């Protein structure tokens, strides 16, 4: 695919957002060995372009749902970094008060509703949320809804659900696709096809076929693209978000990418031999950051000094975020009993 470059400032912004996620994930990986972040942690190193390229088109009013590998989605949607880190440490100041850990994130102020780790678990929730948004808009359009104060809303808020290739083995995925098309929901399905479920390759789990064509068969507008090219993700997501916002129904993107670290944890695990020899190395050459950096320099949209300045700025932010998170307090025993019921 020939990709038109987003405006220079925009590509730089996308690069910065990806770099922020990469450096935050690397910092988590480094500190994970200190045995203080005691929860299952699934890093998204290598897959940053998808979260960033999609979320670039979302407003705070748009909502996002995610999965166990959700740090990138949370950060790209505007989730608070110190509260993410505090959550990993199990502090009361974490985004879930320490009740969720890495696999349960939320930042309602940013429109990041939730990530959870049961594969497919949040997919119907995103559809339900989009359904409610659609009903509120329709009510408002008819002028009798209390929800929107009876005025005509500007445009429909959209909801985005991030999930992996493994979801296509779950019934709830197909149930949700069916309903989303039936109701023409303002919903974006973003399939991050990284080809592995834990250590099991796609070929052992699904027949050879294009995942997005299953979505097409369900009646969605579905396309696939290179999930490691942020400019390409940006372009595809722009069309998809615009379509969903304008009432053209649910949109589906299958984006090909690859997970660098082990399924769960801070390390690489290529020595275990479940990937083909050279597979990871090849994907690393297609690193979303590397490719964008080359583009920025090649098109003279940026320079080494500016990129170095980004690095130091992020290093400082992340250092401060950890310092702030580490000032957290332990959740009290009494607080553990709270919020079973609303």
């Amino acid at each position, binding site marked *: 695919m020939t990709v038109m470059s987003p405006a220079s400032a925009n590509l730089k912004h996308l690069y910065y957002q990806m770099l922020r996620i990469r450096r935050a994930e690397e910092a988590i990986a480094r500190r994970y060995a200190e045995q203080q972040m005691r929860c299952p942690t699934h890093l998204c190193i290598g897959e940053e372009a998808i979260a960033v390229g999609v979320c670039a088109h979302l407003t705070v009013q748009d909502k996002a749902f995610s999965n166990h590998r959700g740090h990138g989605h949370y950060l790209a949607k505007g989730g608070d970094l110190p509260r993410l880190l505090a959550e990993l440490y199990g502090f009361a100041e974490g985004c879930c008060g320490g009740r969720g850990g890495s696999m349960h994130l939320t930042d309602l102020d940013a429109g990041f509703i939730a990530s959870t780790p049961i594969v497919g678990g949040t997919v119907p929730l995103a*559809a339900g949320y989009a359904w409610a948004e659609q009903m509120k808009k329709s009510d408002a359009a008819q002028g009798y809804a209390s929800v929107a104060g009876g005025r005509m809303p500007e445009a429909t808020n959209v909801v985005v659900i991030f999930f992996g290739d493994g979801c296509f083995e779950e019934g*709830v995925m197909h149930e949700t696709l069916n309903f989303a098309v039936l109701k023409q929901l303002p919903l974006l399905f973003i399939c991050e096809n990284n080809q592995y479920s834990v250590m099991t390759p796609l070929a052992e789990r699904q027949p050879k076929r294009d995942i997005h064509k299953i979505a097409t068969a369900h009646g969605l507008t579905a396309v696939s693209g290179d999930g490691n090219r942020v400019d390409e993700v940006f372009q595809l997501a722009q069309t998809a978000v615009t379509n969903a916002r304008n009432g053209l129904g649910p949109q589906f993107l299958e984006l090909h990418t690859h997970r660098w670290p082990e399924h769960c944890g801070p390390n690489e695990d290529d020595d275990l031999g479940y990937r083909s020899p050279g597979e990871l190395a090849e994907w690393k050459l297609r690193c979303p950051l590397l490719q964008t950096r080359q583009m920025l320099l090649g098109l003279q949209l940026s320079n080494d000094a500016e990129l170095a300045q980004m690095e130091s700025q992020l290093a400082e932010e992340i250092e401060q975020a950890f310092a702030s998170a580490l000032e957290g307090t332990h959740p009290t025993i009494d607080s553990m009993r709270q919020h079973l019921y609303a």
Partner: protein
Amino acid sequence: MRDVSMMTYGEAIREALDDALAKFPEMLLIGEGVPDPKTIFGTTQGLQEKYGPQRVLDMPLAENGMTGICIGAALAGMRPVLVHQRIDFALLSVDQLVNNAAKWHYMFDGQQQVPLVIRVIIGRGWGQGPQHSQSLQAMFAQVPGLKVVMPTTAGDAYHFMLAAIADNNPVLFIEHRWLHHIQGEVDKQQGLSTLSGAALLRQGTDITVAAFSHMSIEALKAATVLASYGIDAEVLDMRCVSTLDIESVAASLAKTGGKLVIADCAPEMASMGHQLLSKLVLTHGHRLQQVPRLIAYPNHPVPTSHFAANHYYPGAEQIASAVLAMLDKPELIESVNRDLQSDLPKDQPDRSFVGPF
């Protein structure tokens, strides 16, 4: 002014749904068959016509997905009521109910809430068989974060439904199909139910019968006949199953000399009786003056054949026999059971009720 009307349990549910749809603009009523010509045994009749197809609607055959979709809508401020005509189908949605709905408020530290009602119907008879008539109340009552209620009277059906819809938590609302035709008083002026506490259906001094759902009706039948033999049974309806009102049982036992019969419409191993007894023993064990009795179904699925199923379901006769055994009056068992005997087939709740159902 009291506004009391007589209506059936099924009518009370329809009335509550109607009143809630009028009261809560964000309420949705959704389920397989909700607007179809049979309208969930009449309980959703006329509601789509009145409130429109956006709020009262049918759904794809996707119990788990639709449960998740209703949770998502609830997170966005709606109040969905999702209906399953048989509880057996709700098993397909256990992932969404247990992993998401029940935990959401807790695991996100109270920042989000899931105002969701799941209406499920349990029952028996007319060959409903192994996969159309299970009683899974005890299983669902073991999930923290899920409220489980089993109202028995028309009044409770109305007020529990309204309260469940107003509640900002997921509520599993279990209806026994054989209650649907039973009439009762509904006082609409009564305040909002707190979805807690047992209901004292009959006062008595000789023995306590703590019963669940349709078994409370059977217990009342037994108590009526026993009264003509000078035996005064107290009947408690354990209508809130996830928050069992053990205090009321203990208070009743203090009055009845520590004699307890429990009756649940579920197989013995899946009966709420075990949870009730365990909690009772742990908190008020000294109140039990005799080994209690538990009336429940056998520990196997119900066979479809009505010849076989007739022997599957215990009822008023078994409750009365247990009461008489505990009161050391075995000589009355034959006579009491003769009084309780009915020529009605055991797969039919009353003569007006004809299959299929």
